[in-house]
């Protein structure tokens, strides 16, 4: 750039205006502006325009942009078929699953029934009676022992009777057997005693069962009464809280009314 300035050189004036010229050129322009009214006016006008431009500021904007990890977004944006375990099962598979579950339940139920079945030969307990049967089952082993003892005793008596009724020894023992009557009558007595013992055993079982059932019903009733009492207590507390809130709101309303009336 030469150190001469030609009047009307706008590019040079702009360089001078923005102070982006070398010192020599700046001196030359300054000297020219000092003696040229038109160039002086031009520089002054452009300087004033620049001052006006400084008034322009953009409106405040909420920015705060941030780069966030793309990975989760990318994953969510990608359209992939769902995994096989997330896909809905076909109807046949659902039906098969239902049958399987039902069968498993039935098997388990049957196994439980076997477990609570009474002595061999007795009728199986229904599922609704499981609880009662479980409680009563403690009496079952004693009955089996009784029966075993009874059987043992009966066998002993029968063997005695056979021995008494044997030939050659009948006369010797007739005196002993008379009080007991004939052999047929003795068997009837034995059967009667057996029946009596079985009846006694059944009665004991029934009594035990009745006692256990009564205890169970009593416990159930006690628990039920306790639950009802607790629920009633809770409801009462809620009522009390709500009532307190209502009373508080009423107080606030009354206060507001008084204040508004005073203002009027």
């Amino acid at each position, binding site marked *: 750039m030469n150190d001469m300035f030609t009047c009307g050189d706008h590019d040079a004036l702009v360089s001078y205006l923005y102070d982006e010229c070398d010192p020599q050129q700046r001196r030359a322009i300054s000297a020219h502006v000092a003696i040229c009214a038109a160039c002086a006016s031009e520089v002054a006008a452009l300087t*004033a325009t620049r001052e006006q431009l400084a008034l322009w500021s953009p409106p405040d904007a909420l920015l705060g942009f941030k780069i966030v990890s793309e990975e989760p977004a990318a994953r969510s944006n990608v359209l992939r078929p769902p995994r096989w375990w997330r896909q809905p099962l076909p109807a046949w598979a659902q039906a098969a699953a239902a049958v399987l579950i039902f069968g498993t339940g039935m098997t388990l139920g049957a196994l439980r029934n076997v477990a609570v079945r009474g002595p061999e030969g007795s009728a199986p307990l229904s599922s609704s009676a499981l609880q009662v049967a479980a409680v009563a089952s403690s009496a079952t082993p004693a009955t089996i022992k009784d029966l075993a003892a009874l059987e043992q005793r009966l066998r002993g008596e029968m063997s005695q009777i056979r021995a008494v009724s044997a030939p050659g020894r009948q006369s010797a023992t007739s005196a002993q057997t008379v009080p007991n009557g004939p052999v047929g009558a003795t068997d009837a007595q034995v059967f009667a005693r057996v029946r009596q013992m079985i009846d006694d055993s059944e009665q004991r079982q029934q009594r035990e069962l009745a006692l256990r059932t009564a205890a169970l019903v009593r416990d159930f009733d006690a628990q039920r009464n306790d639950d009802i009492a607790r629920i009633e207590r809770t409801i009462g507390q809620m009522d009390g809280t709500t009532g307190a809130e209502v009373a508080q709101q009423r107080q606030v309303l009354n206060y507001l009314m008084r204040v508004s009336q005073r203002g009027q």
Partner: protein
Amino acid sequence: MTLTDDELVARSISGDAESFNQLILRWERPIYALAYRVIGREEDARDVCQETFLRAFRGLPGFKGQAKFSSWLYRIALNLCRDWIRRQRRAPVMQMPEGVDPGELVADRGPVESIEELVSRRQLSGVVEEAMALLPEEQRTAIILKEYHGMTFQEIADMQGCPLSTVKTRLYQGLTVLRRYLEKNGQMSPQLVKRS
């Protein structure tokens, strides 16, 4: 310790997103201001600003440091602004500032008062903005980069892809148009200017 742009860029390239967020924090206001002054609409300027940083983030691996990071950002933002202006398919000189209803202006217009004069009367503070909207895009951008972002003639020439002398011409022509507009709208006194 405050890291330089180059250091933050290097960290960002190595995968540190937080460093890039620091760059955003540092440059989002200037980029938004540039976009707003070029396209004149707040919402769109914000979109341009956001898109600028997104493109910059995606283009980081290709940024070799041959220019300043800020210059690179400005170039991206200006390209986006140009795209926006092209999409608008209308002359920016006819664009009204946000919040001004042209229909209302016409209804209030007096017999000797031009629309431009009415705008300047009602929105005195926005008169510069209106004046800038009158300029062609190249002149407006050159003035914005020079006045508000302090770029040198050479930087503007690089940014606009034109010779240095073209930048000076654009600046002079733009300032002259603005001066006339401001004088016309009473923002500058012609007599005072002449006297000084």
